[in-house]
């Protein structure tokens, strides 16, 4: 869609978003890309750094309370980025907030998630929320790829409305190995370390 190309063009002019692959990606695999989160540009930057044949089947995960709030944001998220909206605030304790994500993976598509749940002010990622772990358990054959977004915490930090153009490299790490019988806490810590190592 034209809006996707506009967003990709804008983000390249603004921050470059050139990818560096520490290990090659396969076009036919299903991935969960998980990255550090420090700005509103993150989603588009990571998305536009992907090779187009992978990008076409990859859906970023966005918070409904922000991206669903106005019709413009909704339009950009759903039409421009092909995003999946999730509820950060659980209304009904019975609901599974990860259900829309599971549906995407079950359909054979890939996901981009920011496991910190919210934007951080610093360069290195904070503690991860458990969503990544639950998805990883539910889909044991999906490949988990750590991604580090450089410099974006300087480009458009939380609380600023206007970006500063800075060169951002998007580093894709090697697939995170699965360890059997690993606890939730140690898995999340290992995943976070994998992102930090790319910094």
């Amino acid at each position, binding site marked *: 869609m034209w809006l996707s190309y506009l967003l990709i063009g804008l983000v390249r002019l603004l921050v*470059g978003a*050139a990818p560096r692959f520490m290990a090659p990606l396969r076009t036919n695999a299903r991935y969960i890309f998980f990255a550090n989160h420090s700005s509103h540009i993150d989603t588009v930057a990571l998305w536009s750094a992907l090779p187009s044949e992978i990008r076409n089947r990859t859906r970023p995960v966005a918070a409904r309370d922000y991206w669903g709030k106005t019709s413009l944001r909704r339009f950009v998220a759903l039409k421009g980025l092909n995003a999946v909206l999730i509820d950060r605030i659980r209304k009904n304790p019975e609901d599974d907030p990860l259900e829309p994500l599971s549906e995407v993976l079950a359909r054979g598509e890939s996901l981009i998630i920011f496991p910190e749940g919210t934007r951080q*002010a610093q360069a290195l990622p904070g503690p991860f929320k458990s969503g990544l772990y639950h998805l990883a358990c539910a889909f044991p054959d999906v490949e988990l790829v750590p991604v580090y977004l450089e*410099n974006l915490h*300087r480009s458009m*930090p939380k609380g*600023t409305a*206007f*970006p*500063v*153009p*800075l*060169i951002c490299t998007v580093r894709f790490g090697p697939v995170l190995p699965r360890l059997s019988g690993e606890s939730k806490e140690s898995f999340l810590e290992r995943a976070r370390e994998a992102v930090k190592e790319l910094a």
Partner: protein
Amino acid sequence: MNPQYKFVWLISGVIALLTLATAIGQILRLRVSSESAKPVVANLNARIYAWWAMVAIFVFAFIFGKVATIVLFALVSFLALREFITLTPTKLADHKALSVAFFVIIPVQYYLIGIEWYALFTIFIPVYAFLLLPSLSAIGEDTEHFLERTAKIQWAVFVTVFCISHAPALLLLKIPGYAGQDALLLFYLILVVQISDVLQYVFGKLFGKHKIAPVVSPSKTVEGFVGGAGSAIAVGGAMWWITPFSPLQSMGMAFIIVLMGFLGGLVLSAVKRSMGAKDWGSMISGHGGMLDRMDSVSFAAPIFFHLTRYFFAD
């Protein structure tokens, strides 16, 4: 000769030169077998391809006129400033100042060239921008390294916007008997700078023994400088017919351009190394970043502009 003819001759000459360079590059690629020389040849070829792209962009700008040229250089400033700020440690408190530098100061500076408001164009950045930017940073209420941060942002804007904008500003000079040919003067500047850069590199690789500034810029050698500068001055002199200068004056101007270009390369290399980097970026294949190619232009353009204006323009 009218400007169109001059332009056609000039472009034909440059294309012939680049074709020759490409042929030499390809022959070297096939002939060179030692492992140590291969990367040098690969780098040379990458540079040659990038020059083709630069020439294509330049021809495009020339054909589409003043506005296209100004937009092109505004984009160059934008990308150069982006590289500079990426390597500069700034803080959250500088965010407003930086946004203003990119999205207000660059457009205004180039707009002033577009409307040929010479008086404001020369003082807009040193007076207005340099008082506004630190004020915006101070409003951010963070005093840690305040002077260093401010100085670095100002210097970034000075080199990447103020200095580089003097190249397209050549288009606003009113030189008697030279109406409608200002774009050739811009071409002359870029040509002399680029030829000097590349021949210093080539002579340095071939005959370089005595390093001029081993700490700041290890690739600069006396042999490279003499060979490159001498050739560029000769080319500059031979190009007198596209300029308002006599052959001797043209050689003098080329000498100043080469000297300033050399100093620009030296100073910006020192700046880059003080920030812990070898290249400004990786945007142009074989050339590092935008600033690695524009460093010489940034120092040569303002001096060339003012000398031409003082001695030759109305």
